[in-house]
């Protein structure tokens, strides 16, 4: 399984903060993103059509080409604004 997290404006726009998905179909982050984007406009806007999409795999910044393994924690979020 994969643990997926959504933060900040993504969490609000997508209506959820986390979910689990089976690893099987997703070799890379890109595969996962393609599938999630099919869920509707909000998903496409936040994930596919967003040049500022930030990706973390296992709490480290990653990108679309990052390979996924069982038990990975994947997070999607907008650019950070702390401090």
């Amino acid at each position, binding site marked *: 399984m994969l643990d997926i997290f959504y933060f*900040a404006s993504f969490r609000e726009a997508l209506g959820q903060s986390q979910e689990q998905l089976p690893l099987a179909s997703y070799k890379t982050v890109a595969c996962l993103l393609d599938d999630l984007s099919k869920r509707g406009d909000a998903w496409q806007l936040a994930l596919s059509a967003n040049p500022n999409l930030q990706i*973390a795999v296992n709490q480290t910044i990653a990108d679309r080409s990052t390979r996924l393994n069982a038990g990975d924690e994947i997070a999607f979020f907008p650019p950070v*604004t702390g401090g």
Partner: protein
Amino acid sequence: MTDFPFIKVQTADFDLTTEVKALREGHKDIGAVVAFVGTVRDINEGEDICALELEHYPGMTEKALESIRLQAHQRWPLQSSLVIHRIGKMQPCDQIVLVAVASRHREAAFEAANFIMDYLKTNAPFWKKETLPDGAEKWVDARVSDKEAEAKWLSKTG
């Protein structure tokens, strides 16, 4: 809450004197301490702010802050450093973040504190949501100038 004693992510406020004392504890050859405190302004990008809420990514936040802190220690001769970042609801004038650095000489302390703040701004997973006077809530946009501030360190020698 965290395995990193010099990183704290907390809802509670912090006391500057107490934290700087902890930073200096056990180091006698410190000559310079630089402390940066980020506070909630009552206006941002021309709009009045009534409240601010800070969301973060538990776990990744601490890792990101510790990584930034270690990069600073590799780059400058520091005796110690600490980062405290608050989360949850805050009001104008509240303290949000403390970065404090101790070194033998002042230049390293100034540069390292500045570096840690610039990297925190662009690499630590925190997000701010503002409440406006009409009750509307608005996620704060990332600033281009923060990316530029981070980029300037790539061309600088430590």
